[in-house]
């Protein structure tokens, strides 16, 4: 392993079911500790790993159908994220994780697919947290997940989350303004119905209440359920399709949540060696997410 952190080898991928319950409890405890000035300001210095994870064919098919990928035996890069995500969540619900899991905002995601990986290969999964950093709206953190086949790194994901209003690491040095977005000519449109969040929760196992019910969404300040970030991100990768090649970098920056139901406009277009992707609200022109898929060098 490239990482220096002590490794905790888990016997299996931890189930996600109780994570949000524990996350809510941990969030309450953290809020109290912060008020008392006792909350930690560092990340757990360890990595979680699980060896020999075998993807399930039915699970893969359901995921591929949901995000619009071909029904290949190759695992879509977003599917590997789904497999590895419970390890990252297990880190985030630890008592010594300094930020509350529930209510965290997914800011950006970067995946490097080094080599194709297929249904018949057993994956060794790894997760750790790094880069606790000040952000203009709170504190950001990177959850790094990796997948190896026979000690060969095939996939590496970095998910950047924001804990809003939590000031652990001071203020950012420079508060750079967001680049303004001018909607380009769309190449397509997605039709995301009201059940999109629930169905992605089923295929991903990630049952964050903001995707499941209007009530759950309202509890966190959203008027309706919102599409899962990794769902919309996976659709951008599916839209690029087989042209992404065997080894690629897939990056996404999330700008504003997609409130369901929604039919956002999409542009997927060649840009240099790779593809650029934008997804925006069809009427208001407000950017939901922007991303790229480029050959891995």
């Amino acid at each position: 392993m490239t990482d220096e952190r002590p490794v905790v080898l888990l016997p299996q991928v931890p189930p996600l079911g109780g994570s949000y319950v524990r996350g809510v409890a941990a969030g309450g405890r953290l809020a109290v500790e912060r008020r008392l000035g006792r909350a930690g300001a560092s990340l757990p210095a360890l990595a979680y790993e699980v060896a020999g994870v075998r993807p399930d064919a039915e699970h893969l098919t359901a995921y591929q159908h949901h995000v619009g990928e071909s029904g290949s035996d190759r695992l879509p890069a977003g599917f590997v994220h789904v497999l590895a995500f419970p390890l990252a969540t297990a880190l985030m619900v630890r008592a010594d994780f300094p930020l509350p899991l529930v209510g965290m905002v997914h800011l950006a995601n970067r995946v490097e697919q080094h080599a194709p990986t297929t249904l018949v290969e057993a994956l060794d999964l790894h997760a750790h947290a790094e880069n606790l950093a000040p952000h203009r709206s709170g504190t950001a953190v990177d959850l790094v997940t990796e997948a190896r086949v026979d000690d060969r790194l095939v996939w590496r994901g970095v998910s950047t989350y924001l804990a809003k209003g939590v000031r652990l690491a001071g203020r950012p040095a420079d508060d750079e303004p967001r680049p303004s977005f001018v909607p380009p000519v769309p190449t397509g449109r997605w039709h995301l119905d009201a059940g999109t969040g629930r169905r992605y929760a089923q295929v991903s196992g990630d049952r964050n209440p903001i995707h499941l019910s209007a009530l759950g969404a309202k509890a966190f300040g959203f008027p309706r359920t919102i599409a899962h970030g990794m769902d919309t991100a996976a659709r951008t990768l599916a839209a690029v399709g087989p042209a992404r090649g065997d080894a690629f970098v897939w990056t996404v920056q999330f700008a504003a949540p997609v409130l369901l139901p929604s039919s956002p406009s999409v542009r997927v277009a060649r840009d240099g060696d790779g593809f650029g992707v934008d997804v925006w609200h069809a009427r208001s022109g407000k950017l939901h997410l922007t991303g790229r898929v480029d050959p891995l060098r």
Partner: protein
Amino acid sequence: MAPSPSPRKSSTSGGAPAPTARRALVLGGNRIPFARSGGAYAHASNQDMLTAALDGLVARYGLQGERIGEVAAGAVLKHSRDFNLTREVVLGSALSATTPAYDLQQACATGLESVVSLANKIRLGQLDSAIAGGVDTTSDAPIAVSDRLRRALLDLSRAKTVGQRLAAASRIRPKDLAPATPRTSEPRTGLSMGEHQALTTAEWGITREAQDEVALRSHQRLAAAYDAGFFDDLVTPYRGLARDANLRPDTSLEKLAQLKPTFGLGLDVPATMTAGNSTPLTDGASTVLLGSDEWAAEHRLTPLAVVVDAEAGAVDFVYGEDGLLMAPVYAVPRLLARHGLTLADFDYVEIHEAFASTVLTTLAAWESDTFGKERLGLDGAFGTVDVDRLNVHGSSLAAGHPFAATGGRIVATISKELHLRQQRDGGTPRALVSVCAAGGLGLTAILEAA
């Protein structure tokens, strides 16, 4: 390589004799293992399976990013949303997005017809390369709403006033909500294919033992071909399957004899057709790579076989004149007469095993003096096929039969066999392919080593 003149060139030379069409070659094939209905591909769609088979072919022959002349494929059971199935599969595959595609369908002859249609385009000079295919799933079959509900819903969508809407909606009855599943019976007779074949089986007096022997041989030969590695470059594993799920290498006449008959139960002769000597419902997909001599040379691909000619046939089964699956019995003599060939001129004969008795009734009709004289208009019997030349690597009874995928399986398998035989013994070995289909249809073709 000596390409024959293209039609375009010779048409400019005035009163030249009719141009000889150039050769259409089988360059390879790829399929996914066939799964039993509700098995490994239970939730895979036609699009998923055909994409998997196509991407396997693309990977095998280094066609990533390549613009192929045309891809044609089809499915017998198809969702209405899959109106452009083959093009969608191309767009989801590693082929260039500028590869055109079309869907076609001729019941169980779909796969072979896609090979024949594309081969003809290559022979005409319209295409230099093509991929033929077929796919079917009985696990993910389309289910439609009832006709009454469908009409009411359509009227509802056209209604302009509240009154019209209420009138349309009020026609819907609870029983209309029951879904309509695809029917496997013949629309004009109401009999299933198995029930039809049971009539033909009884008419020709085909025994249970003879049918079980055909089934046993199919399993043994397919298993032997897998064991010998014959399918290593013809099959891409998918969803955990590496071999056809229906294959029973260890079956025996004793085991087959224990199965209860499933078709022909109401006839006045003993029923002989069982689940063991009939093909099961199957999911799967197959593809065949076709090209001209020039295209093959440019891509450094070894030609396996030439698609020489094809003949479709149909029988009037509605009034019982002929058995539902007997069309090839008539098509083959016409096809062979056109080339001055007899059954004895073929090194291989592939007769799709819809049922073991389909093979046996076909052979019985060809061996019959009376049938030859009275129905085929010949001087006597058409001819015989001994088992050494028949379905040499097994067929649908062992592999299973995902309707539209069967033609591609047979063409790829026998083309490779023709090539190996030529490498071993020289000469130009020749194969006859025969596929029966619903609606009293049949499609037959001649292939020879390239």
